[in-house]
């Protein structure tokens, strides 16, 4: 067991711990902060895997984008200190049962499956490489998905605007 392993375990515990907090705390604002921590933990995990670019994207998009969006919406819809309504016991039990069963099944399947390993080659996840491939129309290129996702973002943008427009109107009115 070397440092790397210990780091992994630490990161893992961190991710899971904050994740559990994020889904269980009854204060919504705190939940969002726990989520933030958890996402940062995942970014850290990417660092651990030497995928710096991915870690950066994770931080930029999730931490900088999504969580901020979430916090904004919390501000818009909620008083921060409020505790959230409690879930029914029955629902909790079923949810827990389903999740546990699912976890058990998946974990078992993953565990019993013997993935081969290919350590001969190192993953080349340099920003340069990613950039070239991203805009390459030919073999190994991801130009088309890149274009597609731009359309997706565009339409999401339009959708958000249309839905939000009404609010603006209400405010003015």
């Amino acid at each position, binding site marked *: 067991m070397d440092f790397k392993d210990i780091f992994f375990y630490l990161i893992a515990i961190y991710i899971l711990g904050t994740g559990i907090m994020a889904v269980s705390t009854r204060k919504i604002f705190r939940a969002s902060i726990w989520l933030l921590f958890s996402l940062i933990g995942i970014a850290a995990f990417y660092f651990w895997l030497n995928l710096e670019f991915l870690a950066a994207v994770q931080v930029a998009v999730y931490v900088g984008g999504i969580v901020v969006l979430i916090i904004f919406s919390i501000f818009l819809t909620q008083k921060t200190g409020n505790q959230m309504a409690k879930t029914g016991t029955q629902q909790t039990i079923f949810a827990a049962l389903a999740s546990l069963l699912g976890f058990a099944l998946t974990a078992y*399947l993953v565990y019993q499956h013997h993935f081969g390993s290919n350590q001969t080659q190192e993953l080349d996840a340099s920003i340069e490489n990613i950039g070239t491939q991203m805009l390459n129309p030919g073999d190994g290129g991801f130009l088309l998905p890149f274009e597609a996702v731009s359309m997706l973002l565009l339409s999401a943008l339009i959708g958000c605007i249309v839905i939000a427009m009404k609010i603006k109107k209400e405010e003015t009115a």
Partner: protein
Amino acid sequence: MGLELLFTLKHELLISLSIFLLLFIFVGSNHTKGATIIHIVNALLLISVFFFLFEPKQSFVFNQMFESNGLIQFQKSILSLGLLLISALSFQWLKHHKNVIEFYLLLLSSLLGMFFMISAANMLFFYLGLELATIPLAAAANFDLEKRKSGEAAMKLIYSSAFSSALLLLGISFVYGLTGSLNFTEISEKIPVNALSQFAFILVFSGFAFKMSVVPFHLWTADVYEGAPVPVTAFLSVVSKAAISFVFVQVLFKVFIHLELSYTISLAVVSICTMLLGNLFAMRQENIKRFLAFSSIAQVGYILIALMGSHEVAQSAIIYFLLVYVFSNLAAFGVIGIISNSLGKENISDYKGFYQQNKFLSWALAIALFSLAGVPPTAGFFGKFFLILAAASKGYYLLIVIAALNMIISFYYYLRIVRNIFMETSENPMPQVLVQPITKVALIVCLIGMIVLGLYGPVYEYIAAFAKPF
């Protein structure tokens, strides 16, 4: 290369062009009338419908991600036709909607997503197409901004679909883990048959099943259909469903071909559930949109049993069925949309004595329902018969019997509406509704489609010709 690529991507390019046209020319200008925009989009869509006539040869472009061939082009044309018809049928609603451009932008994006999805030969690209097809729709479902139900529908759609995407992604990640590839052909070659691969398959399957509204992944369907504006419901129920079914056929028959036993078992179970639950729920619906939601769930059940048959027959039968389904379901939604829009009535009981004042609409709705029920001479009959014929090709006769029994139940509820329209008399039946000329034309096109597709054999033969290379 260049011209050929243009040809390969002609549907996508045209739709993107439309999107940009709308985005850059019209969004800013406030003077443009809704009607003009609608006509322009319709014209573009009409062109897209006929694109399939210029079919390119089989080609893979963009890192083997994008596939194109005659069948795919044809499917894209069907989807374009679907949107075109929806657009024409909901002319009235669109004309008066202040966000008509945005509406088109969303639906066109969604259509583009479907084109990507159909053409996808790669899991990543497929996933992107799927999301591009879904996310704008969720936004579009919320287009009746002042209606609470619309919001609820949009919420249910986006949450359910996000949840299902998460599971689909988990599945894809396992597939990736098992094969090391995202390319469909490579996956199909490399995928092993073991517990994990089956689990991964089921996860992917559930993603498709969700979009196709297969029981028990269907629960969002009715609520969303009910709450969303009629054109969106129509789009969801017809175009979206057709698109995902097209892909599903390819994915099952090409990617997971080695898991045939698994998928056959899964299909057998879910198809029975789908037909049964869809029909049982449809029986007791009061809201006509909700009713159509369940009835379309039941229809999916028949598609599923066809999937279990031998590939050539199944593929052509399903595509044919979906083509017919586009016409029949859209005609039904068209009439419902007109009524919902001009009178605000969406309940089956509101249709009592409908025939007294609205003869054309009544016949259109009735014929659409007959086609959905599978009664000759409408094409629905042929569609259903071929599906069942396909299912029997591998000898699943028990399923056929179950399907046949389900058809009787489905017959009951379709006739229930016909009964309300023609036989019930009402003290105050719906007043005569003005039908826009373009809407009327679209309805007539649907009616002609419903009648002619079956009686005119070459349509099916055209589709069947694609299936030969399997």
